[in-house]
């Protein structure tokens, strides 16, 4: 069974408070598209304006794919229901709220 990998990429720059607002809208992550091929399927927790509740997602090139949407589209049928429940359910209060 292949193990899930998540890349938590860090930025090597230090920001002062004045650069903070600028730093938040960085395009840094999009520089790593070639890290995320089919040979490197990561798993992480993401949210967005369309997916407001943090949930499990993966990444391919520069696209983030929310797993619950794949489950909703019946694309992960060969996975046990107990795991599907886990993949769809992330309680923000159970994580450090970061």
């Amino acid at each position, binding site marked *: 069974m292949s193990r899930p990998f998540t890349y938590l990429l860090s930025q090597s720059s230090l920001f002062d408070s004045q650069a903070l607002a600028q730093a938040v809208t960085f395009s840094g992550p999009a520089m790593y598209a070639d890290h995320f091929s089919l040979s490197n399927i990561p798993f*992480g927790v993401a949210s967005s304006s369309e997916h407001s509740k943090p949930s499990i997602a993966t990444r391919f090139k520069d696209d983030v794919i929310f797993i619950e949407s794949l489950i909703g589209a019946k694309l992960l049928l060969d996975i046990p229901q107990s795991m599907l429940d886990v993949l769809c359910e992330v309680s923000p209060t159970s994580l450090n709220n*970061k």
Partner: protein
Amino acid sequence: MQHILDPNSGISIPPTATEGIQHVTMHLPIRVSEFTDFSCSKDHVLNASEVMTGTRKAPPGFLHFPVGYAGRSSSIIVSGTPIRRPLGQYRDGNTGNVIYGPTRQLDYELEIACIVGQPLPYGSSITAVDAEDHIFGLVLLNDWSGKCRSLK
């Protein structure tokens, strides 16, 4: 998942499933109850020793067991979070006085973090052969460390 994500597989992913990386917010994917920071790279241990004490010397136990210490769980943050240079006491190289301020020697260390998903009952232990059964997954981790010279 590889099959689903393969553009050549003929499987269509609903458009609502996908968003560009610049449009999402990443969150810490796990709740870190505790973590152990291991120092097992000989090169790193000698380099760090040189920076902090001036001499290249591994700790006495280095060749006998994996050297590690308990880290501060709340210091683990998700990638992209701006880092504040850590503050601490250190000896100013010019005046010789102990001062408090932003560390002047901040290094970054690329590490692999093993997320333990299957705990051990209290009082029990395992060997490396069985470790994989307890590892949920791996992440890359950047350990920012203040490496000011030790106070002597």
